[in-house]
C-alpha cells in the first residue's frame, strides 16, 4: 500500500493512499467536526460540516469523502470554515424542534456537543417549528422526526451492517423524512429485525429506546464498531 505525504494545518502527515482526509487528520490528532460520518459506514458528504480548504481547489472539499493525495495542503479550521460550520448548525437547530431541555438525548447528543464545541450559542434564523409525528409503534424503539437531521446514518447502518434495509428517505427538501419499509409505521415494518443498530447510530434524540426520559438516551457505539470490525477484518477480539 503506497504512502502519501500531505500537510494538514501546516503539519506534515503521512497517510495510506486509500485513506480520506478525515482519517489522515484523525490519525494526526486533528479533529474535524462531522455529523453524517460514522466509522464503518459508507460516506456521502451530506452534512457539510467536515468541509476543508484544499490548496489549488476553489471549492471546499468534504474531508470524509475525499482521499488523500501526494503534496496536498489542507486547512481544516480557518475562520471562514468555522463560520460556515456554525451557520450549518444554526440551520439545523432552526429546521426542526430542538428543545434540548426536554430531549431524551440532552447531554449525550452529537448535534448539541458540536454546537458547544463550535461556539454556536444562539440561532439567528427564525425557527420553522416542524409539526411532524412521533412514531412509537415499534415495541422497543421510538422515532421523533422533529429531532431528525436527515444524516441517514440509520439508513446506512440498517442496510450496510444489519442487511435489513428497513430505512429510506421519502419526500424532498424541507419535507424529506426517514421512513420504515414503504412508509408504514415502524411497528408494522416487517423487514425490521429489532436489532437496534439504527438507534445506536443516531447522532441526535430522533431515535430512542422506549421508556427513556429526558437525558437518559445514551448510545453504545463501541458495540457498533465491534460488529463492523468483525465483518470487515474477521476479528472477534475487542
Amino acid at each position, binding site marked *: 500500500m503506497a504512502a502519501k505525504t500531505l500537510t494538514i494545518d501546516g503539519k506534515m502527515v503521512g497517510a495510506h493512499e486509500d485513506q480520506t482526509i478525515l482519517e489522515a487528520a484523525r490519525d494526526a490528532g486533528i479533529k474535524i467536526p462531522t455529523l453524517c460520518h460514522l466509522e464503518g459506514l459508507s460516506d*456521502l*458528504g*451530506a*452534512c*457539510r460540516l467536515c*468541509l476543508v480548504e484544499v490548496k489549488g481547489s476553489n*471549492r*471546499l472539499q468534504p474531508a470524509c469523502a475525499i482521499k488523500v493525495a501526494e503534496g496536498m495542503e489542507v486547512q481544516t479550521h480557518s475562520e471562514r470554515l468555522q*463560520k*460556515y460550520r456554525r*451557520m*450549518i448548525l444554526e*440551520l*439545523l437547530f*432552526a*429546521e426542526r424542534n430542538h428543545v434540548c431541555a426536554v430531549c431524551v438525548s440532552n447531554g449525550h447528543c452529537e448535534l448539541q456537543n458540536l454546537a458547544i464545541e463550535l461556539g454556536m450559542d444562539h440561532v*439567528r*434564523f*427564525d425557527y*420553522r417549528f416542524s409539526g411532524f409525528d412521533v412514531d412509537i409503534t415499534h415495541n422497543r424503539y421510538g422515532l421523533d422526526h422533529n429531532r431528525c*437531521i*436527515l444524516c441517514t446514518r440509520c439508513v446506512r447502518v440498517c442496510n450496510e451492517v444489519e442487511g435489513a434495509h428497513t430505512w429510506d*428517505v421519502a*419526500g*424532498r*427538501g*424541507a*419535507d*424529506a423524512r426517514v421512513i420504515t419499509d414503504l412508509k408504514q409505521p415502524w411497528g408494522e415494518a416487517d423487514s425490521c429485525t429489532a436489532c437496534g443498530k439504527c438507534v445506536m447510530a443516531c447522532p441526535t434524540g430522533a431515535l430512542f429506546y422506549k421508556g427513556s426520559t429526558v437525558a437518559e438516551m445514551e448510545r453504545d457505539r463501541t458495540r457498533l464498531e465491534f460488529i463492523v470490525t468483525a465483518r470487515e477484518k474477521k476479528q472477534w477480539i475487542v
Partner: protein
Amino acid sequence: MDESCGKCIPCRAGTVQMHHLLTKILDGKATLKDLQKLEELCDMVKNTSLCGLGQTAPNPVLSTLRFFRHEYLELLRPESAPAPVKSATTPEVSTHA
C-alpha cells in the same frame, strides 16, 4: 421551494431560510440585520452545498443585491434603514455589508 432534494443541509434548510428572509423583506418587516443575514447565508449556501443546485440557488439573490441594493434598502423597516439611501451606481459585493 420544491427543488432541493434535501440531501445536504445548506441547500435543504438554507434555501428555506433565504425564502423566508426575502418574504420578510418584501412584507416590509425586515431590518438591516436581516439583510446582512441574507447575504451571509447566500455566501454560505453557495460555497458549501453538495451539488450545482445549492451552489447556484443564491445567485439571483446575490446579483439583485449587487445591482438593485437600493430597492432592498427601501423595503427595510424605516427605523432600521441607513439614513441617506445609497444610489445603485456603485455595486457592492462585500458579504459583510
